[in-house]
């Protein structure tokens, strides 16, 4: 239920939620479950942003970002050491001031590159979360589409089976409290 995760429904549960409020008994609709496809539970799990698969995605992507950042810092470190050595050489040949200026430029360039790398890392982390949000949204739409198809299928079944034939049974009169229960049920279900 967290973050609006959809709750899985088996075909029988679905038929019950659809037909029972209309007065159709379980005996009547039970035999029609074979004509409705199941929606795999895994797909419902994908509607939860805290699902394991998104944690895996997050871990792997963050790992890659960390690796990239580490490689960048390692490269910067090497550059600094190299520059330091070259600056010392300059001090001996061209004088202390020239060597000191050269070292300063190298340090400044390394600092800028380091900041850029850190900023890219932060953006990468944000992009990962945004990617997860997009994926969850897409999965929710997908599951909602499957549920819509199932309702449509159930309606056709009801028509074929004559489940709403008033000659055979009595339709339940409208009951406002049932409507409230249905609202509460949907609130619980869709958050």
């Amino acid at each position, binding site marked *: 239920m967290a973050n609006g995760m959809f709750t899985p429904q088996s075909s029988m549960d679905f038929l019950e939620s659809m037909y029972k409020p209309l007065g159709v008994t379980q005996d009547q609709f039970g*035999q*029609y479950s*074979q*004509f*409705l*496809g*199941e*929606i*795999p539970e*895994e*797909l419902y799990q*994908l509607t939860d942003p805290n699902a*394991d*698969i998104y944690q*895996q*995605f997050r*871990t*792997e992507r963050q790992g890659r970002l960390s690796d990239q950042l580490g490689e960048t810092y390692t490269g910067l470190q090497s550059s600094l050491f190299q520059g330091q050595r070259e600056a010392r050489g300059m001090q001996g040949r061209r004088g202390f001031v020239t060597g000191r200026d050269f070292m300063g430029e190298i340090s400044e360039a390394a600092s800028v590159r380091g900041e850029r790398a850190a900023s890219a890392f932060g953006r990468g982390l944000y992009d990962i979360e945004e990617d997860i949000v997009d994926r969850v949204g897409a999965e929710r739409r*997908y599951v909602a589409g*499957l549920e819509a*198809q*199932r309702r449509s*299928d159930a309606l*056709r*079944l009801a028509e*074929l*089976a*004559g*489940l709403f*034939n*008033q*000659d*055979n049974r009595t339709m339940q009169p409208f009951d406002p409290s049932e409507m409230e229960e249905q609202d509460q049920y949907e609130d619980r279900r869709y958050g």
Partner: protein
Amino acid sequence: MTKGFSQYQQSQLGVSAAKARAISERSQAQFRTGLTAVQEKEALERAADQLEQIAKEAERNARRRGRRASFGRLLGSTVGFVLGGPAGKAALGTALGGLAGTAAAGGFKKYGVDVPDSLVPGGIFYGREREAFKQRADDLEEAMKDLTKEQRKNIGKNVLTDFLIGRGLGKLGEAKIGDLDVSLDDLLETGKISKKDYLVDILRSSAGGIGKDRMSVLRGLSEGTADKFVSGFQDPSELISRFASNQQISDKPGELEKLLTATQGLTIDPETGTYFDSFLEQLPRGIQGTREEQMSALSKLRPDITPRVSSDVLSESLFGASNVSGQSIQTAALPKPTAPQGSLRGLIEGSSPTGITSGDQRFLDFRDTDGLIKNLATGQLTEEYEELLDDPTMKVNNLFGNPKRNNMFQFMVGPMGGMR
């Protein structure tokens, strides 16, 4: 498996597999549904074909061996008729009706009709037809028990032939019973007789007539046949009044016109519900009843039982108040200052407005309720007599003092709701 993939990638593979499974399962379920429906429909149609063959054979047997051999077939077709309804049109009804003879095979075989039990197709769809078939089969068995041997013998051959194709019974049911002003179909539809009694009476009438005792019973039942709905609304003023008070109806003039047109003599198709579909659905719940009851009742409305609408009722319906009393309707002769001038003037008779004339021509007569309603509802008057709109008296000022070209309805009601 899939060692080269990361954990997330492996999970993603599982997700795609689940999605594929969902699509596949739905496809399979749809296929099963369609296939089962087609198979069951085909089975019913095959049963109907087989029954037709059996019917033809029974007819030959009847010619060779006499009526007795084909009698069982009569029973089946009788059920078929009832299943198809009084109109007797449904081929499926005829087929299943024949199957009724099969279902009750123990009772029918003695009449020499061999309908195999296997002719009854099984299935889970088309439950309504099956349920109806079972019920009718029971009704038929009971009905046949009530018939005497003599009656069975006397059932005419032609009637049997008609029964086999699901038509003749309908004709018998439609006909008036003896000297009564009611048919068996009427009694069945109004619930005065059961389906079993209906069958028995049909068969009796085909076998030479309904006996005196039964006729006396039917005569008693036929009194007050107009059912509860009709009797409650024989005076359409009440119905119209309720209709007028229902604010949910968007096109009141249109619906009212339909209502009055129908109650003034145009018959209503009880099957399609022409004219009354939208109207009935919007009636207050307290007077709705079931749809069958409504259609049955409304289909019986005829001019001879429907009094014409009085101008009082009409005014009540259209303007929300009677023209006898009320704040918004002027009942006395129009005072001179407000009386129409020029070529258009209200025709005042007594204390109530009774019509509108323009010059020598009388456009509207309040006592001609049919014409009035039709004109008001359809705008026919203003369409046909465009000059009325150009009459100075029609150009009344609206509430803001601006001249406004008005229509006849507005003219009659007036800017403040008063009848002019």
